[in-house]
Structures are given as C-alpha cells and as structure tokens.
C-alpha cells in the first residue's frame, strides 16, 4: 500500500471519529499556532531584524574603556582603523541627532542618523525609492540631501511616490529628499531620516570627542575573533602613539546582530519560546492520551490487520500517518491562530516602544515561519503518535480475536501510559504556571517601584533646542527659566522642573569624575551618575537634603558652580569625612568642565529599575549649568496627559518652532520600560493557562476513561458494600496520586528551570516559596476539580446495571 492509501485511510479514520478529530485538531491548532506566532516574532526581532545580506558578517565597532565596552568612537581613531586594519572589507561611521522638522505640517522632532556614504554599502542596503548619497555628498557644504526612513515617509509624507526632490527643513537647514529606505532596512530602528555625515578636518583629527558608532563588514574568511585580535593590537599601537587620549582604550568588535539584540532580548525570547514549546508538549501528551484511549477501541482492527499479514512496521507507519495527518490539519488551523496572535501582539505594542525594537514591524508569516510550522507539525505528529502506536503493536491477535468473557477486571498498559501522560502534562503545566507567576510577580513589583513618586500625576516631555540658536548657556538658561515659569502658571500644575532622569527610569548616565586634590591609582576609575536638575526637583519628588543645602536662586550662571551628591557618593568617596565644601569635576582627568563645590547631600534614590543597588550620583543645577538636552517633569493634580495641550500651547507662545517631544506620563515611561518583561510575562501567563487547561482536560480524560474501564469493578465494589463516598474517595485518591506525582515533578522542574533562568526573573526570588505554594494549591484544585466529575459519575454507577453484563 502506498503513502497515498495510508493517507486516504487515515482521513477515513478521522471522519469516523469526528469528536476525537475535532478535539485533537483544536488542541494542535492552539499549540502549533502559538509556537508559530512566537517563532515569527523571534524571527523578525532576534534572528532577522534587518534585511541585510550576510548580516552575520557585519560587526559593530566600539571603543573599550575601563568604564564600558560600548564607548562611542572618536573620528581620528576611526580614520586610523580604516587605514590600518586588514580584517574588514568596508567600514562605516554614524552618529545620531534629534532634529526639528518644520515645513511639513506641524513642527516635529525627528531622529536623524548621520552616516558616512559607506553605511549603505556595508549594510548592502538599497533604497525603496530614489538613491542613497555618495562620498561626494559627505563633505561640508555639499551634504544637503536626505534619505527618508519608510516610517517617516509614510507618517509625514503619506507614502507619496513623488517625495523625491522635495525640500525638508531640519533644524532650519534645507535638505533635498533623494531616497526612501524600505521597511525592512530600518537601522537604527528609531531612525526617521538618514543624512550625510560631513565632518570638518578638525573633527577628523579629534581623538578626544567620542560621538560616533563604527560599523564594518568582515573580509571573506576573517572571523570576528581574528578581527578582534587585530583591532586590539591596533588600539595598543594607537595608545602608544597618542597616550593622552588613547591610553587604556581598546576596540570592541561584536556582531551587529548581537549588538542590536543586546544580551536580554534573545534570552527573553528563548524563555518564552521554550515555554510555548512546553505548551506544545502538553498538547502532544494530550493527543497521545486521546490516541491511547482510541487505540483500545481499535485493538480488534489492529489484531485483524496483523492476522491478515501486516507486519509491525506497516502498522506503525499507518498509525503514525494518522497522527501526522492530524498534526498537519492542526498546523493549518495553527496558521490562523498565529496570524491572530501576531495581530494581537502588534496591536498591543505601543508605537513609541515598537520603534525601539528592530524588526518588530516585520513580524509576520514568511516562508521561514511556514517551514517552521510544517516541521513542528511533523515532529508533533510523531511525538503524539509514537507511544500510542507502539502500545497498539503490543496487541496479541490470538487473544484479541478469541471471543469470550473476561473473568478478571483490570487495567492494561494503555491505562498506565495514559497515567504517565497525565502526570507529564501536570508537571509541564506546573513548571509553566510557576514561571508565569514568578515573572508576573517580579514585574508587578517593578511596575510599582516608582509609586512613591506618584508617576500617575507627572507629565514628561522634551524640547530639542537647536544648537545653532541656543549656542550659549545664557540662551538655554533663559529658555528654561521662561518655559518653566509658563508651565508653573498653568492651572492644576503643582511643580514644573527639569531633569535628565527620573527615579527608576534608567535614563541616568554614568560618567567618570575627578575629586580635587585626590589622585586615583592607575587603572582605577571614579564614576557617578550625572544628573542636571532644577532646584525644585528635590521638593517635587520629596527627596530630602540630608546635609548642607539644596540649590537656590543664588546658584546662577557666573556664581560658583555647586553640586549636591547622593548618600552613596558621600559614603563611597568621602568615608568618615564630610563631603561638603570639597570640589569635584565631571569627566576624566582631561575634563574641561567646571569644578563643582559640594553643597549638599541628598537621600539615596535609585535611578535604575534593573539594577537597584545604590549608585553614587551628582546633581547639578540646570539653571547654573544649563544642559543642551533635558526633560521637563510637570506634576499636576489631575490627569497629566490632559495637561499636554495646555503645556504645548504655553511653550508655543514663547517659540512656535520648538515642538514638545516624547510627551508621556511618568507612569507610561515606567510601563514602557517594562514592555519586554510584560510581553514575556503575558506570553508565559497565556502559555501557563493553556497548559493548565490542557492538563485539566488530560487528567479529566484519564479519570473518565478509568471510570469507564472500571465500571464493572465499581459496580462490584458497590455490591460488596462500598458506599458512594468510598467510590468517590477511591477515584479522587487515584487522581490525587497522579496530581501529586505530577506536582512533585513539576515543582522540581520549575525550581531547576527558574534557577537556570534566574537572571530573567527580576524583582522576585526564583524559588519564591509563596509562588511555589500558591501555584501548587491552584494546580491541585484544578486537577481535583477536573477529576471530581468522573469521580461523581463513578459514585453514581448503578451496581446492578454495571454487573448486568453477565
């Protein structure tokens, strides 16, 4: 018989058991569907975030200092790399700038990426429309051309095919649009527009200003390790040649894919992908259970086939064909589930977060995803079918075909296997639900970390001050003072302040510091968070000044620059000493910034959600040392987002060309920061609930089958004097035993997995006893509830009816 015959017979078999087929196909559609959706998201975000040919050959180049391996690059160093390195076929350099787009509707801030012409060559990126700029356009005075990103083209220009040749104004400079990049070439992901990087000769000779990101494509046959080794040697040579700027610096070579993904995204994806694979395993166990039950009914058929000469391989092939066919039909349904799930994921991701996720917008069902789904269906079919098929082969045709009554009532191997599958389902469900609960609990703790600062009452936004117009501290200070006065005058506003970071929002930058008259040992670095704030910041967030004073009006431009340090700063750098009166300076020993006199010590405040260990921090007065970029924080008595139009109007009254950017409440920022975690936790919760439901169905099936199989035995027990309670207890005891074994295995599995992935469970212990005990109770309750129905049916068996099969 051919495979076609097998398929045709398998189809007939499924038509004969529509209930079984429907249950199996639905479970498989859910199992394969969520795995397909997860893979499509992982494929878009982690595996193929950019449509760049041979992406694995493209590397990110950063400078390495004792503070970080991701320091930006100085142009003169980059120039030397391109001349001296032999590991790379091509190099590119880029920098980022926030610019104000005017002349195309309302003024808006856009994220510009300034690149060398080779940027597009390194990435082998072709424009969707028009052309990209060439070397000749990367020179001062000839660089007034722009390539739009797909997103900006759609958003601001309505995907107008005639956009080429149009003039756009960025920070009051005109640029001619010469090209539009495709949706799949969005690097960096937040870029709105690409502009030619046109450095001056002075900038090209500068080794002290680290403002750029390097990019290169490896020469054929060169590995990343070899390139790293060469760049390290090269950096050592540069350090010897230019010790003032390059001592202690090296080069970090990393694949662009790893650089885009960062360390955590692939880990989270692996965690949730692993979890959805767990769900598929639970589904397979469920299908295997159903097939085992069905296999008992099909024993005479198998016996007959054997009697007619079918060998074991032949029967195994037939049974596996049926199982794989089921999976393939399930996978077809799974494509629909995946499409819905993907749609839900895309719709639920805020656009302001999605733009920082490379590849996210490309999530969809491409050929790779469909091939994955097909492979998954075949593997699932084999996993779900192999044990029932092997069990069916154990049938002894002689005894099966012999007519005659059974003298003893008992269970067979199929029942034992079904019990094993039920235990496996419970164990997997327990592990999944515990994972989901741990992540949700941690996330919940983090989501509320900033609650003491009333994030639901604070509006935040930024204003990009064009460098050309706000080129002096006085001009910036004047803008800040005037804008804050206007905001404070708005009805309902309680505070309006400036800061570059808020507690727990991970926006604070660490910088090297220098303490006056104190030398540091070679190779030792002193660092602290750099926090320019306005004087009312401490009162707004109720951060007490523990010693000295806060900032006040006397701290103005021209007066002695002052700083307030954190408790941790004082303890770390002035142990047993009073830090007040000492002078510090931001930047390393070659810093040109002003010395700051410490006038106060503020209570410890954490600025990082992910790493809440106390960090040394230095607050500076933004009215005394006005930063080039900062954020507004405005607290209100009512809904902060409702205040946004009034704030916009108030600032437009000073300067209508300066738009408000990234208008969000503090609560939204915190929420957005946890998007990845929420996504992972949400997926785990969905996976956990599905697995728990399937496990409940699994144990229900096993117990219902057990009751059906033991009807005569139960009738006999009742005849012997067992009460209904005895029978109920007997079935529930059996269910408890199965649940208990599954629970123990599941708890052990969960503990092992949670410890392995401890770094992903933030804000909670991976062995949190409350979570473990709580989930164990819930799973037990669900499993026993699922078993109660068959147990009740068992207890209501009529002994006379049960024994009437005599």
């Amino acid at each position, binding site marked *: 018989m051919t495979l076609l015959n097998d398929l045709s017979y398998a189809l007939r078999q499924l038509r004969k058991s529509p209930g079984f087929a429907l249950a199996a196909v639905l479970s498989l559609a859910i199992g394969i569907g969520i795995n397909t959706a997860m893979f499509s998201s992982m494929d878009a975000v982690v595996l193929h975030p950019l449509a760049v040919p041979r992406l694995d050959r493209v590397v990110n180049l950063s400078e390495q200092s004792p503070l970080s391996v991701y320091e930006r690059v100085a142009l003169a160093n980059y120039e030397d790399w391109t001349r001296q390195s032999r590991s790379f076929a091509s190099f590119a350099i880029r920098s980022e700038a926030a610019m104000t787009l005017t002349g195309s509707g309302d003024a808006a801030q856009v994220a510009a990426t300034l690149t060398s012409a080779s940027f597009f060559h390194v990435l082998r990126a072709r424009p969707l429309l028009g052309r990209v700029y060439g070397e000749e356009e990367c020179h001062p005075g000839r660089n007034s051309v722009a390539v739009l990103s797909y997103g900006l083209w759609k958003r601001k220009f309505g995907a107008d095919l005639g956009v080429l040749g149009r003039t756009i104004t960025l920070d009051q400079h005109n640029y001619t649009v010469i090209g539009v990049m495709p949706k799949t070439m969005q690097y960096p992901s937040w870029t709105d527009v690409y502009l030619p990087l046109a450095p001056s000769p002075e900038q090209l000779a500068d080794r002290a200003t680290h403002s750029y990101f390097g990019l290169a494509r490896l020469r054929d046959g060169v590995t990343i390790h070899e390139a790293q080794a060469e760049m390290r040697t090269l950096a050592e040579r540069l350090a010897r040649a230019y010790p003032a700027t390059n001592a202690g610096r090296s080069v970090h070579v990393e694949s662009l894919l790893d650089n885009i993904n960062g360390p955590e995204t692939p880990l989270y994806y692996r965690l949730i992908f692993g979890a959805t694979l767990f769900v598929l395993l639970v589904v397979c166990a469920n299908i295997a259970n159903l097939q085992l039950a069905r296999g008992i009914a099909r024993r005479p058929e198998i016996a007959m086939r054997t009697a007619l000469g079918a060998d074991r391989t032949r029967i195994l092939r037939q049974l596996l064909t049926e199982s794989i066919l089921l999976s393939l039909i399930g996978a077809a349904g799974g494509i629909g589930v995946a499409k819905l799930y993907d749609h839900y994921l895309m719709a639920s991701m805020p656009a302001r977060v999605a733009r920082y996720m490379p590849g996210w917008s490309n999530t969809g069902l491409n050929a790779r995803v469909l091939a994955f789904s097909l492979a998954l269906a075949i593997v699932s079919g084999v996993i779900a079918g192999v044990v029932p098929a092997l069990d069916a082969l154990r049938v002894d045709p002689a005894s099966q075909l012999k007519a005659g*009554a059974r*003298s003893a*009532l008992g269970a067979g191997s199929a029942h034992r296997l079904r019990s094993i599958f039920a235990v496996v389902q419970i164990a997997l469900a327990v592990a999944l639900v515990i994972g989901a609960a741990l992540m949700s609990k941690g996330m919940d703790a983090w989501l509320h970390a900033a609650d003491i600062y009333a994030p639901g009452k604070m509006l935040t936004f930024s204003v990009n001050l064009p460098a050309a117009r706000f080129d002096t501290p006085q001009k910036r200070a004047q803008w800040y003072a005037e804008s804050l006065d206007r905001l404070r005058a708005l009805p309902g506003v309680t505070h309006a302040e400036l800061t570059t970071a808020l507690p727990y929002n991970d926006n604070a930058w660490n910088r090297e510091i220098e303490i006056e008259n104190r030398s540091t040992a070679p190779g030792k670095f002193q660092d602290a968070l750099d926090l320019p704030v306005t004087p009312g910041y401490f009162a707004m967030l109720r951060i007490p000044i523990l010693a000295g004073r806060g900032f006040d009006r006397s701290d103005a431009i021209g007066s002695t620059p002052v700083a307030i340090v954190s408790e941790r700063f004082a303890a770390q750098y002035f142990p047993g000493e009073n830090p007040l009166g000492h002078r510090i300076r931001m930047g390393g020993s070659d810093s040109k910034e002003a010395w700051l006199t410490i006038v106060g010590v503020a209570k410890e405040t954490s600025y990082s959600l992910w790493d809440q260990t106390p960090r040394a921090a230095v607050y500076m007065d933004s009215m005394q040392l006005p930063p080039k970029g900062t954020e507004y924080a405005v607290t209100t008595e009512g809904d902060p987002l409702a205040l946004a139009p009034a704030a916009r109007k108030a600032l437009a009254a000073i300067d209508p060309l300066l738009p408000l950017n990234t208008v969000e409440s503090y609560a939204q920022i915190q929420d957005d920061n946890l998007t990845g975690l929420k996504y992972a936790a949400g997926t785990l919760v969905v996976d956990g609930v599905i697995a728990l439901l399937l496990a409940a169905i699994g144990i229900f099936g096993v117990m219902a089958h057990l009751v059906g199989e033991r009807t005569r*035995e139960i009738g006999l*027990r009742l005849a012997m*004097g067992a*009460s*209904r309670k005895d029978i109920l207890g007997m079935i529930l005891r059996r269910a408890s035993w199965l649940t208990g074994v599954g629970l123990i295995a599941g708890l052990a599995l969960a503990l092992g997995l949670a410890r392995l992935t401890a770094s992903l469970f933030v804000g909670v212990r991976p062995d949190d006893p409350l979570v473990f005990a709580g989930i164990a109770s819930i799973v037990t309750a669900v499993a026993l509830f699922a078993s109660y129905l068959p147990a009740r049916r068992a207890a209501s068996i009529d002994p006379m009816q049960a*024994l009437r099969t*005599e």
Partner: protein
Amino acid sequence: MPSNGTLIEIEELTKVFYTDEIETHALSGIHLTIARGEYVSMSGPSGCGKSTLLSILGLLDTPTGGRYVLNGKPVENLSFGERSRIRNQEIGFIFQSFNLIGDLTVEENVELPLTYRAGMPSAERKKRVKEALGRVNMAHRMKHYPAQLSGGQQQRVAVARALAGSPSILLADEPTGNLDSKNGEAVMRLLSDLHREGSTICMVTHDPRFARHAERELHLFDGKIVSEQEMKKLEEEAQTEAEA
C-alpha cells in the same frame, strides 16, 4: 414477625420497569420465605425474573411494591447508604464471571468487602481472609493474581470473598455458567459443603443438574413462583404457541 428460623420473608413483591410508556412486570406478587441454613435454587427461562429477584434479595435493586424483611428488618425502602451497609454485613455474592479485580491479589480480593466494614482492624481482616481461603482450599494461592488462576480456582476465590464477611446468606448467580462441567461440579460440591456447615444459600441456575443440589427448588415463570408441574405445563403451552 418471622420465626427465629426465618431469614428472608417476602410478601406480594412486585417489580415493574418503565421504558417509553411500556410497563414490564418483571416480578408479580412474589411470596417467598427462606429459612436460616436453607439451600434454595431458583430456575426458569430467560426473562422470567430470577436475576431481578436475586438483585432485590441482594439489595442491589428495590422492589416497586410489597414487603421484604431480611433478618427481621424491613429493607424494601432503605436509602442507598443503609442498603450498602446491610449488603456488606448480611450478603455474600457469587457471580457467574467471578468478577475478581485483576489488579488485586487473591488475598486483597477476598479482603475487599471487609475493607468497607467500618472499624474492623487489619489483623481481624487478615484472619478472616485466611479462614475463608482455607475453607475453599485456596490459602496457598493468596499472593497470586486472578490471571494466574484457572476458572475453577477463580470461582473458589470468589466464593471465599463472599464468605469472608460471614454473611447471613450467599447469593449465587449462575455460579457455574463460565466453568466446564468438571469445575462446575467442584463449585457445586463446595456450595453443598458450605450448606452442610450451616450457610444459607440462594442460587440462580438454569441447569436442572445443579438445581437439584439445593434442598428446595423454586421455579419462576413470567415473574411468578410456580410449582414444578405448573412450570412444565406453562413451558409446553409456550412451546405450542411458538410453533403455531
């Protein structure tokens, strides 16, 4: 009130089954008394009501009407729980197809009814199991599983299970139906031995050879107890009707 020698007293007992507006009178006005230590057989054609009567006698079913007094206590209107308790203490069942539980050993099978008897210590149960198996000569197979025994041996174990609780009466429903003649005879001899030792037995059988082992033979026809002569006459009439 029954005399001290009466174990079962049934008066005007009826059982009607209702299916889709059709009334089937399985038992119609049965009067029956079984004395303690008596060995009664019940026979009759298929559908005559003998299994229904046995189920009511064993409290597995309830009558539609009439009186049933077991051991001096009216039992026709008891709750399921009370019937379970009385069944456990007063009645021992022997089935045609033995109904031993395959997952339990011989010892555990025999112990089963005793496990439903509240408050009986384990040692007492073990003692009774040993005695019951000794009475049917199966004590040496205590640790075996039913599948390891012959049909005749399985039925002997089933008899031991019925005896273990020291019931007032043994109800045997076609106890030789699944056995060959040699094993069937052996089981019948065992029942006779038990009767001689004082057991009260009520056995349903359609085999006249086995029915004659009993002291008293009851004949059922169309839900009524009839005499042997009446039975023959009714059977002949039914035969003639069928041929016509």
